């Protein structure tokens, strides 16, 4: 959307427009299990008369695959759609506590791309936690530019964890030192750290893991999985509620395995084909009027108790 267009649209129009971009998802942590709804649904749920989130809950936002710098036919202006995603997030009646960006912030790891992404996302006015995507590792140093910007207080290639209101968040990096013929990769050093990070935590602690590439094998032929994710998942199985969020595949795919639920988010930049539905996983060109419906954000709401984290995926238009 260009400036001229955005000047003309009202709030309703903006919501429709954001729906097309589908760039965000809102997660609601409720009793430690995440469930998602689209951002549109979240906004709808907060209209007059709708049930409000319980006291003591908090929400956060997931933005993924903003690919700032991408300008190919599938979306000639990835900056604009990221702006729409952030604008949509700002319309939420309850401000999320923070944003998780699940990687591919930039398209080619250029300083200007990172800087523009940061400037746009900072408009949301809430803290942002990052993990890198493979597109963020393309500088000469193979990820040093990412670490210089986002790596403070992280370990190795950028992994870390933090706690928020009783929920333990774990940021994993599965795009560093990728091996010939493989898929995503965590590596022994990170797995050793993860084991230590989780050790001693009560099994009742809700866990949210976020990484760029899926931690389950969505489609091996396209490399949509993580070679050594089994080892990470084995460390997570004893917990009663584990929510794993990722990007990379630019579409919503969900899967539940025991107490572990996997949620892949939309991109704010361009869609990709369903697994095996095209000759390659490259950017999917769709009619301009259809694009916003395939991009989005996600919100999550966490409510203390035994309920799942509520996830809401919102298209940009």
């Amino acid at each position, binding site marked *: 959307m260009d400036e001229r267009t955005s000047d003309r649209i009202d709030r309703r129009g903006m919501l429709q427009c954001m729906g097309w971009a589908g760039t965000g998802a809102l997660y609601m942590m409720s009793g430690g299990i995440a469930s998602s709804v689209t951002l549109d649904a979240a906004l709808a749920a907060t209209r007059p008369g709708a049930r409000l989130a319980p006291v003591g809950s908090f929400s956060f936002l997931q933005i993924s695959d903003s690919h700032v710098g991408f300008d190919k036919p599938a979306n000639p202006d990835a900056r604009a759609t990221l702006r729409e995603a952030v604008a949509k997030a700002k319309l939420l009646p309850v401000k999320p506590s923070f944003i998780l960006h699940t990687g591919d912030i930039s398209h080619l790891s250029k300083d200007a791309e990172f800087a523009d992404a940061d400037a746009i996302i900072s408009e949301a006015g809430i803290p942002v936690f990052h993990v890198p995507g493979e597109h963020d590792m393309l500088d000469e140093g193979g990820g040093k530019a990412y670490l210089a910007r986002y790596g403070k207080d992280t370990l190795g290639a950028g992994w870390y964890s933090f706690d928020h209101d009783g929920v333990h968040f774990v940021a994993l990096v599965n795009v560093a030192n990728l091996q010939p013929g493989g898929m995503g990769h965590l590596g022994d050093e990170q797995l050793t750290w993860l084991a230590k990070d989780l050790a001693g935590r009560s099994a009742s602690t809700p866990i949210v893991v976020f990484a760029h590439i899926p931690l389950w094998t969505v489609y*091996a032929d396209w490399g949509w999985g993580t070679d050594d994710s089994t080892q990470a998942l084995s460390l997570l199985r004893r917990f009663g509620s584990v929510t794993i969020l990722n990007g990379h595949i630019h579409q919503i795919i969900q899967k539940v395995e025991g107490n572990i639920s996997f949620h892949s988010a939309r991109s704010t930049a361009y869609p990709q084909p369903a697994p095996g539905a095209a000759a390659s996983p*490259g950017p999917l060109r769709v009619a301009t009027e259809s694009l916003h419906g395939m991009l989005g954000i996600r919100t999550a709401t966490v409510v203390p108790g035994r309920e799942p984290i509520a996830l809401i995926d919102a298209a940009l238009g």
Partner: protein
Amino acid sequence: MFALLSRPTHAAWLTLAFAVSLAVAICHPANATSPAAVVASVQVVQIKNFAFVPAIVTVAPGTTVTWTNVDEDPHSVVANDKGFRSRALDTQDRYSFTFTKAGDYAYFCSLHPHMTGKIIVKPR
């Protein structure tokens, strides 16, 4: 051995590649005893639909291989043993490497490591 990274016109590129290959073929000590290698040649590999096409190529020593990315996604060309490595190649970017010694050179895309290829270098 050396690599070139550029985005010249096609004609300019071929001229340059030929000159470079010839220079390598003539000047490189390893080629002094291998008359076949004196014939400079070029080989093209496309990066298309998340694959190297052709995935396996056999060339004579002294051949300059040029990879061109025709996908909308960036890719890279990285030797498994890190003996050669391109930067990220955006759409229509090219990377060239001249292979002077016989051997098998397996490589992959460091962004999408399921993409693999091999250059087999042997005297004709």
